[in-house]
């Protein structure tokens, strides 16, 4: 006879919607999502403290923290470990790698935040969070998500590039093409009417066709 198993339906946040609210114990005390209002927030999860790939990522996140700060972005880590484990690991990183971790880390022992954000991929692990990144804007709207597997460390330059792209979109009302980097030309949103398409051809942008225009900022 087959044993019945209870399976919770995983929830996933949606782009363009308010990021799920939370209150959590962190290495900086009890924090709520709303505490970050007015700043961009990169909420990221890692599988476990005292593991090698996660250690390289924490060092790398700490290294880009000053660049993120310039962009009004705060960082907040998360894993299903205790605050004491986080503190011990952070101190260990400072001792062995000479890097101080400046951002808070959520101790999500009851998996509350991990479940809200769909950070647990049971196909990979039922007890660890995958390598997720959630970019939340100053109004608390979820703007981008990245999911990496347990085995693969994230690319910090891509995270910086993503933040730059989102902030450029907000500031200038444009989109950004593949592999875009700050300083490069951006995409002018395509016109939505036939008249607009006609006008676009004479608008003075770098235009391949009515739907494909670029401009320098």
């Amino acid at each position, binding site marked *: 006879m087959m044993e019945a198993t209870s399976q919770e339906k995983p929830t996933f946040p949606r782009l363009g919607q308010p990021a799920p609210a939370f209150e959590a114990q962190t290495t*900086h*005390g*009890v*924090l*709520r999502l*709303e*505490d*970050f209002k*007015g*700043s961009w927030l990169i909420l990221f999860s890692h599988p476990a403290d005292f593991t090698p790939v996660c250690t390289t990522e924490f060092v790398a996140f700490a290294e880009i923290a000053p660049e993120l700060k310039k962009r009004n972005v*705060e960082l907040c880590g998360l894993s299903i470990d205790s605050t004491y484990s986080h503190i011990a690991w952070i101190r260990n990183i400072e001792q062995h790698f000479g890097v101080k971790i400046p951002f808070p880390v959520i101790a999500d022992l009851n998996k509350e935040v991990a479940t809200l954000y769909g950070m647990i991929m049971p196909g990979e692990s039922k007890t660890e969070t995958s390598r997720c990144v959630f970019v939340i804007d100053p109004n608390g709207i979820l703007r981008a998500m990245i999911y990496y597997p347990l085995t693969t460390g994230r690319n910090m330059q891509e995270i910086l590039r993503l933040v730059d792209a989102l902030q450029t979109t907000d500031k200038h009302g444009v989109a950004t093409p593949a592999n875009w980097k700050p300083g490069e030309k951006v995409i002018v949103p395509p016109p939505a009417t036939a008249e607009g398409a006609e006008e676009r051809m004479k608008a003075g942008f770098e235009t391949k066709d009515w739907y494909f225009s670029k401009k320098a900022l």
Partner: protein
Amino acid sequence: MPCIDSSGDLTEMARKILAAMAGPAPLDEISEKTGIPLYRVRSAARELVDAGLAEERDDSYAVSASGHAAILGSTGKA
């Protein structure tokens, strides 16, 4: 806790924040004045209000009588 340590003393961060609340002042101003990130100031303000050391008045925060006593107290016990 970030504001009150295990022996009941105010932490350095709490003292800085309470000193900046002498005004009273809104939290973003306190963050700017102390150099403590706004998210930490918001969290600390909650803790200080819960502990009776600060009071919220029209979107600004001020040190309470107990807060003053805690700052001035020789042991700083909260």
